[in-house]
């Protein structure tokens, strides 16, 4: 059952070295505050799971949190490459990164299977591509009624799922509106779930295309205003596009990356300080 905690406690209590961790978000509501806290607490050997690894996974990979990445599209959305991700895959820096690669449809259905308590999901896809050659977690399966051959993928059951949402109510129910991506399935597929929110309100109001995750599905809620920076939170703030563009240069160089992380993430106590620190450099639009 959800309880409102501070993020440091939530991460300390629920994210362990060696865990498989899914910090989800489909370019909206990226859980940056939580990712930074994992970096600050120096977690190691994580299996990072995500459909769309972006800046926060670039950061976690670059500082050496990750042993493995399970994913379907890794990039700086709207800008280009993830240089830390590429450096890990292409050059094994700072350490080798095992990868398990799927398509979006495959990853989405793996979460659905996990959230459904099933060992696998079935989809039309992968046939004729090179993905089954490099990804062992893809296998053919036959329809017992029609004989048709389809593809199966195993369920994802992360040890921990972490998402950022707009609001929680007083009972610990969590509201996400606008684009909600794979957030619901990520939370429900995981053994433990942490949600950071923009704010806690007494009662949730209806918003367009809102989903509500009941309190009983969540282990800890932490209030982290602007916690999805540099992505956006529908109803709260816009994407900090300048930051995404600036990240390209920061992440391109190992030294520059390290000193940036040291200054803004490892050198700050919490996400509020991080925001002040990057704002001082004019990197937060709003």
């Amino acid at each position, binding site marked *: 059952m959800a309880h409102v905690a501070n993020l440091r406690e939530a991460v300390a209590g629920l994210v362990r070295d060696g865990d498989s961790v899914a910090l989800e978000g489909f*370019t909206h509501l990226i859980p940056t505050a939580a990712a930074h806290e994992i970096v600050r607490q120096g977690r190691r050997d994580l299996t990072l799971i995500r459909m769309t690894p972006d800046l926060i996974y670039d950061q976690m990979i670059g500082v050496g949190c990750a042993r493995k990445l399970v994913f379907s599209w890794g990039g700086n959305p709207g800008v280009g490459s993830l240089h830390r*991700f590429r450096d890990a895959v292409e050059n094994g820096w700072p350490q080798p990164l095992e990868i398990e690669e799927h*398509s*979006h*449809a495959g990853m*989405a*259905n793996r979460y659905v299977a996990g959230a459904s308590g099933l060992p696998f999901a079935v989809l039309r896809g992968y046939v004729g591509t090179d993905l089954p050659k490099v990804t062992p977690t893809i296998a053919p399966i036959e329809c017992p009624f029609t004989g048709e051959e389809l593809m199966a993928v195993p369920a994802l059951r992360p040890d921990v799922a972490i998402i950022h949402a707009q609001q929680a109510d007083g009972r610990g129910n969590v509201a996400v509106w606008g684009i909600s991506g794979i957030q619901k399935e990520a939370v429900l597929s995981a053994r433990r779930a942490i949600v950071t929110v923009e704010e806690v309100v007494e009662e949730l109001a209806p918003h367009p295309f809102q989903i509500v995750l009941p309190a009983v599905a969540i282990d800890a809620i932490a209030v982290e205003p602007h916690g999805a920076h540099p992505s956006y939170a529908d109803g709260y703030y*816009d994407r900090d596009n300048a930051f995404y563009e600036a990240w390209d240069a920061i992440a391109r160089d190992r030294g520059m990356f390290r000193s940036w992380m040291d200054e803004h993430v490892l050198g700050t106590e919490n996400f509020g300080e991080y925001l002040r620190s990057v704002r001082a450099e004019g990197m937060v639009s709003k």
Partner: protein
Amino acid sequence: MTTHGEKAGAAASYTADEMMTVAASRELADGAVCFVGIGLPSEAANLARATHAPGCVLIYESGTVGAKPDVLPLSIGDGVLAEHADSVVSVPEIFNYWLQAGRVDVGFLGAAQVDRFGNINTTVVGPYESPKVRLPGAGGAPEIAASAREVIIMLRHKRRAFVEELSFVTSVGHGTGGNHRAELGYTGAGPTVLITDLGVLRPDPETGELTLVALHPGATVEQAREATGWNLKVADDPGSTDPPTEGELQVLRDLKARTEAARRGTST
């Protein structure tokens, strides 16, 4: 920057990229349900919606159905996609209930590399285990290429992008050609057109091999051959693309100007 423009009603001056986007936008029929990739495809699809295809239904993989962005989305899950959408659904729903279920008429894709059969690579350049360039990966493309009724690909014509052999087949076009795509069990028609900044390629109805069937104004067969990593098949009498109209160009430039203003990030 090369500029063109001679025909009556045509724009006085435009870039090759603008020609490419305009040509691609014309491929989208009004009323079509279109699954849109980010970048060039999104630009072309929104140009179509703002010109001849106001009734097209744009789907983005982040879950927006009937998106009507007033600026081009900066990312696949941009807020402008949800704002005036007919509906916003979860990512599993968009892939299962919309794409896989056969509700998508046109898949609109970009690529890093393409081969002569319209197969696409967005995974790696070089060997998978020790890549020269690690690309972003599959994303939604394999299933868009698989399940959309037809696929439009947009890619700037360059020798390193138009390759004899893909490092990795991320998304299937016409496979090894001929009947191969159907033999793999795919029901959709696969890539029916590849729009480049030089011209238009369509698959040969028999072999599935992409054939240069039209050149944009000013482009030549030689340029296209030179920018293609395989021995490019050229139609006997390649046509010529109509240059962008003043209207098309105005709408496209307005769209891009609004987008650039938003990208600078001063809006709230």
